[in-house]
């Protein structure tokens, strides 16, 4: 082949460097560049991104300086202290515990759990869906029966039972318990896209080019459904913040002495708090709303940049 190619093409080793340099100049921008251009073109998304990054960094770092057990000690003297009094920036709750500090530690816990849950359950769900959809046939059949079984289990009830059975649970065990139940939606979605994607000729071309099955799944098909992956992952992240806060709100999430956004919102269970002591629950509620909105906004922009026809940013 080599000789015959050399015979028929004027290009030789000497031209290699010059030609590849020329080609580099004409190259289409990398995907990171495209995402960044897209953010620059969409100001609200930029703001959302800054809010998320700054907030997460602030919470992670500030939480290191807070002594949680000491903060959570009851202090009768400051029972429901109003914001701004006695050095309480956002006031104190019924136990005299500072809301502002609880908010920081709580947000860190909630976001940490949501991130862990998203990483574990999305990774698992995506792999499950890709493999099940690609292999089709017997493997798919078996994997789908496992999926059906998991869907049959009443999720919230199972989590509550597990949390009650396990005596000493903390943020990590809670994340793992959630993860067992939150990969199914993702996997079904990914499977159906993979089914139709595997039919396309580029997959057949990869097979005749000698590429192995798993390489085809993860380096040919996966990039092609990346916009779906991104949207699904960001939406599950926003949703997963809700999962933990929801259960903590019901009293089955994190243990009492560990603050989270959910335990803070649970302050609203008390009618007195709702009407008079708004500072005990309102900041946490607002925080969740802003956070979830920002996340879905960022998700949209990333999806747009993954989809060439919807881009708003300049090409270069």
């Amino acid at each position, binding site marked *: *082949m080599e000789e015959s190619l050399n015979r028929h093409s004027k290009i*030789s080793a000497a031209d290699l460097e010059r*030609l590849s340099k020329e080609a580099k100049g004409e190259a289409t921008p990398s995907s990171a560049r495209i995402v960044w251009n897209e953010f620059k073109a969409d100001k609200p998304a930029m703001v959302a991104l800054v809010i998320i990054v700054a907030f997460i960094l602030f919470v992670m770092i500030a939480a290191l300086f807070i002594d949680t057990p000491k903060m959570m000690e009851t202090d009768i003297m400051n029972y429901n202290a109003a914001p701004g009094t006695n050095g309480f920036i956002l006031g104190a709750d019924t136990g005299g515990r500072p809301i502002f500090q609880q908010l920081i530690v709580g947000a860190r816990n909630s976001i940490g759990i949501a991130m862990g849950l998203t990483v574990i359950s999305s990774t698992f769900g995506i792999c499950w869906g890709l493999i099940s959809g690609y292999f089709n046939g017997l493997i798919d059949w078996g994997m789908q029966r496992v999926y059906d079984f998991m869907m049959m289990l009443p999720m919230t009830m199972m989590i509550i039972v597990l949390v009650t059975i396990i005596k000493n649970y903390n943020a990590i065990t809670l994340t793992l318990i959630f993860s067992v139940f939150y990969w199914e939606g993702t996997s079904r979605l990914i499977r159906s896209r993979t089914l139709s994607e595997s039919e396309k000729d580029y997959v*057949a071309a990869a*097979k005749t*080019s000698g590429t192995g099955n798993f390489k085809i799944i993860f380096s040919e098909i996966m990039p092609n459904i990346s916009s779906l992956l991104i949207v699904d992952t960001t939406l599950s992240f926003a949703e997963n913040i809700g999962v933990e806060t929801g259960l903590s709100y019901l009293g089955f999430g994190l243990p009492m002495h560990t603050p989270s956004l959910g335990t803070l919102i649970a302050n609203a269970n008390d009618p007195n708090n709702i009407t008079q002591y708004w500072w005990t629950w309102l900041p946490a509620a607002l925080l969740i709303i802003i956070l979830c909105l920002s996340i879905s906004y960022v998700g949209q922009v990333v999806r747009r940049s993954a989809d060439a026809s919807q881009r708003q940013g300049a090409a270069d």
Partner: protein
Amino acid sequence: MSLVEIKNLKVHYPIRSGFFNRITDSVNAVDGISFNIEAGETYGLVGESGSGKSTTGKSVVGLEKVTSGSIMYKGKDITKKANRKSLDYNHDVQMIFQDSLSSLNPRKRIEDIIAEPLRNFEHLDKDSEKLRVLQLLDIVGLDADALYKYPHQFSGGQRQRIGVARAVATNPKLIIADEPVSALDLSVQAQVLNFMKKIQREFNISYLFISHDLGVVRHMCNNIAIMNNGRLVEIGTRDDIYNHPMHIYTKRLLAAIPETNVSQRAEHRAQRLAVEEVYREQQDKYYDKDGLAYPLVQITPTHSVALPEALAEQLKHEGEVQA
């Protein structure tokens, strides 16, 4: 010995239905076909849409699970996966796909697309791989700046040539070309076809050239098989098929080639209508009671046609009288 020998190949797709999703019937996409492809030749496979051409092509590259029959290459039956593996079969047999856009991964740069078979079969070092890709691009008439672009940045004809570059990258012995030009306009068609002929001469490649267009096939192929509903109805050389067609289906396909000469248009139209008339009247003579083609019978050493013995004999005589 032929390069590839296809014997009694069948590909049936199951149809599942009913409450228990059981197999109740099957689509016989390919229903017992046999032919041989010689080294260095272009073998034409012609038939209307849905006649099973692509399915045949995909079976020959090893993409389709065949129901029964054999495809022999270098003395091994490559319908078995283990044999394809041990022969490094796709190093030698490649495919140009019907739809050039969907056969190029939209997320990959041209360099990675063309280099994919090289990476899997030849394991070159980085520089010689890139050099090879650049040479291939040059041969198919694309500039070096295509290297880092994506498939959607090219025109249909350019994409088809990228598909060709990928197929010839490992210097295969046989390329399945599945309607390589049917999505292109006439001038680009000629360009791609001439180019395929050129690389055939240079690299001594065989083609299995799949098409529904007898005009294009005449330009490309020495031997031709006509396919109808999963079966072969006529096999022969170019001369056999174009000048002495025997099966009514072949005659119909030939009559459907558009006439470019304006002065003969009316005459051509009359002839087409006549063939259509004969087809309607004599259809049951040419097909068995299930509407399927008969087994092939040999007329001359190169020419076979799917007819009952008696009719074949009769037509053969008529042919001799005419000639």
